[in-house]
């Protein structure tokens, strides 16, 4: 008698196949990270070198711009402070970056002075 299985079919979640499939889909959707689409990969590969170059340039110019104020007029040089604030430092760098120049290296030397 104990060799015969107990009929647990009323408790079987597979009795309702649609509902069971829904639960499986829910598990897969939440358990598996969403796949990256081929288009996203292509765009990432296309723009990655450009982004990397832009990042390096931004870092280099950022460091240079940060050094400029340190090489500026000495403290206490009150008369020239307002004038040099527009011709040196980040403001001047931003102006130079916006307008451009014939010789960027000499411009940079000027900024450092």
């Amino acid at each position, binding site marked *: *008698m104990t060799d*015969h299985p107990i009929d647990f079919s009323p*408790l079987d979640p597979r009795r309702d196949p649609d509902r069971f499939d829904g639960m499986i889909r829910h*598990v897969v959707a939440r358990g598996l990270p969403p796949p990256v689409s081929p288009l996203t990969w292509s765009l990432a590969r296309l723009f990655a070198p450009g982004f990397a170059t832009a990042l390096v340039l931004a870092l280099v110019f950022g460091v240079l711009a940060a050094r400029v104020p340190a090489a500026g007029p000495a403290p206490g040089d009150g008369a020239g402070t307002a004038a040099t604030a527009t011709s040196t430092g980040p403001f001047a760098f931003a102006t130079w970056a916006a307008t451009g120049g014939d010789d960027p290296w000499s411009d940079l030397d000027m900024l450092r002075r």
Partner: protein
Amino acid sequence: MSQDDDRDLVRRILDGDARAADAFARRWFGPCYAVALAVVRHPQDAQDVAQESLIKALRRLDQLADPGTPGPWIHAIARNTALSHLARARRRGRSVDLDAVTPIPAPAAPDGDEGARLVHALGVLKEHERAVVLLHDLDGLPHAEIATFLGVTETNSRQLLFVARKKLRAVLQPEEAMS
């Protein structure tokens, strides 16, 4: 399913194969549900626990030490998830059967609801007996797989099944059990 099949399935899921994840969820839903039902003793809650367990398993699959034998690892996740579910229900003060680990007398079941009658009858069993009889008679797992999944010997699995069926029959078919 062989160890190589399980290993291959795990590898494909880690590569992002959604079909493999689907196959994994179908393969392990039954065992997770059986373990959850053995603990929470509520079919709907057990389905929720089984889903939650499989989601956790899929998300942590890279932590699986032996991809060829995921059963014991999945069993641990399912049982812990079920116990957490019970603890949460207790904190919320919800009326659930908190005597899931120790046997209790089966109360009278409502007429005409065979599922409820079975759930009530499962109350006479210990948790391990419930797990074995559900894995074997509901999910159809052989004793070798049940033994690996639960971390018991095959002989132990057979003994637990024998005892569980005997106790259940005494509740479900008292006249037959007496004869």
